[in-house]
């Protein structure tokens, strides 16, 4: 499989005109796209580039606190884009992280785009690896690629894509570079043309591995459609209030593997 196609921004299919910026007037949409990433990786700039909104962006970690929403149309599909608060992790239980985590988990977006700072890849991969555990429809948007180039940092995005098992799209959102390519992949992943095979971390500790195995089997007995039972098991072991509540209330049962071509209705976040 050709994981990352060459930048084909001049091909007719990828014409930027295909993108109709819808601003915030979203009445009906076919797919939900979540945008997450570390603070100060240009997440809001990517959001603005996709939606044509002018949300305030700043060179300062932690600008977006509330969830911003916007929309765009591409290839005759309407997309709702949800800009989640920037977080370093999804495991540290601050309010921002809960909002982001719960949306990715319970909101079940059709695609989750993780915006990654190309100049600080290692740190950013922490979040990427955590998101890969939760959902399997992911695109890594390798942003600030211009800044990386300027500083002599090069990233082999094909190798990265192979390592992670998801598409990796280099972008420079401030210059709108790579956005057409990103759109194309959003469309492919959302419609199920592209199947991600996200990397899941193997636990080193044998006791932990055993515990997760047993527990996730039990979880699957009750919630057979759960796409990420191992992760849920791990969260239960660590004692995650939201997940425990979701198991208790049975809300976890609503989560299911997303089919190939299946649109999501509006998800109301609690």
């Amino acid at each position, binding site marked *: 499989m050709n994981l990352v196609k060459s930048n084909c921004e001049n091909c007719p299919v990828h014409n930027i005109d295909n993108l109709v910026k819808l601003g915030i007037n979203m009445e009906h949409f076919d797919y939900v796209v979540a945008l997450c990433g570390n603070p100060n990786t240009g997440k809001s700039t990517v959001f603005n580039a996709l939606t044509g909104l002018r949300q305030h962006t700043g060179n300062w970690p932690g600008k977006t606190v509330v969830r911003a929403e916007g929309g765009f149309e591409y290839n005759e599909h309407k997309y709702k884009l949800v800009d989640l608060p920037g977080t*370093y992790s999804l495991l*540290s*239980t601050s309010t921002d992280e809960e909002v982001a985590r719960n949306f990715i988990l319970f909101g079940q977006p059709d695609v989750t785009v993780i915006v990654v700072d190309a*100049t600080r890849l290692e*740190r950013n991969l*922490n979040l990427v690896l955590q998101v890969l555990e939760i959902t399997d429809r992911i695109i890594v948007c390798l942003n600030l690629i211009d800044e990386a180039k300027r500083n002599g940092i090069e990233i082999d995005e094909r190798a990265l894509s192979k390592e992670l098992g998801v598409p990796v799209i280099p972008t420079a959102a401030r210059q709108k570079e790579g956005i057409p390519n990103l759109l194309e992949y959003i469309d492919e992943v959302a419609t199920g043309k592209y199947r991600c095979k996200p990397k899941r971390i193997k636990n080193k500790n044998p006791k932990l591995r055993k515990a997760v195995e047993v527990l996730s089997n039990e979880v699957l007995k009750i919630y057979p459609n759960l796409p990420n039972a191992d992760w849920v098991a791990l969260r239960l072991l660590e*004692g995650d*209030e939201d997940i*425990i509540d979701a198991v208790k209330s049975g809300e976890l049962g609503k989560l299911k593997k997303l089919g190939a071509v299946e649109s999501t209705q509006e998800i109301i976040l609690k």
Partner: protein
Amino acid sequence: MNPVESLIIFSLIVASLTVIFLPRKGLLAKWKHTIRSTERVLIEDALKHLYDREYNQLGCTLQSIAGNLEINSDKATNLVERLEKLGLINSKDGKLSLTPKGRSYALRVIRVHRLWEKYLSEKTGVPEIDWHDKAEWKEHELTPEQADDLAASIGNPLFDPHGDPIPTSDGRIPRKEGVPLSSLKEGNAARIIHIEDEPKAVYAQLLALDLHLGSQIIMIENTRERIKFESDGDEKVLAPIFAANVTVKLFERKTDVQKNFITLSNLKVGEKGTVLKISNALRGQERRRLMDFGIVPGAEIAVEMKSPSGDPTAYLIRDAIIAFRKNQSDHIFIKK
């Protein structure tokens, strides 16, 4: 009104407000303390005391109850009678012991106490020295169901922040482990697994020495007068009576002992190191945040620059520049 008079009246008002609202010593605080001593509280405290003596394999008498609860012996006698009537304790030749019912009750109270201490340590900024007092209040307030919710919200912890095991909701509790710090011989290497938080004065002294669960101890000198040891690479001295309040576990293998570690704050601008561990002094959200930035064992870290006012210091960690304060870098151990 004459300005001098009004100033005098003003100072009087300020003074009386201080007397009323002063934390701990003020009238309001004292009043709260007295209304707290209801019968339920006395019963629960007595059971807890009995359990504690039992766990440490010490006997319990009427006197020890009176002393622990700070009540006179008449009141203590009444209390013991009441406890016997309720079927919570047995008394034989002046020696008191818990009935199974009493033990399970005691464990429930202890469970809430320790859970609350864990909650305070993980989720709030309440300083160590105040945990015990706050938990003493809370332990009488929560129902078993509320305690379970509390436990779930902090990840069903196994130990409280002092290293005491937290009883499960069905009353199981593991056996006591380890030996007192004062019993280590010269050259012995061990890890701190428990720090007793009572009496408060002793605990304050241990906190001042920056001793934490998980700290690595190497005994240097153990005499009747003083105990000198290395704790996470720093030399410290304690009186034996204080050292008895710290429980340690000897390392099983020599290779477990970390050598030559220094704190991150010891690095100078331009120097590099590898993270060995984060001390348990950094806990809760602060600890998690440090790890989010990639400060985990094995991470490379370099000192980038110091603030012109001396603190904080900016470090290069996983290609990002992050500033931390000295009270944080003091608790991150590295190897050059």
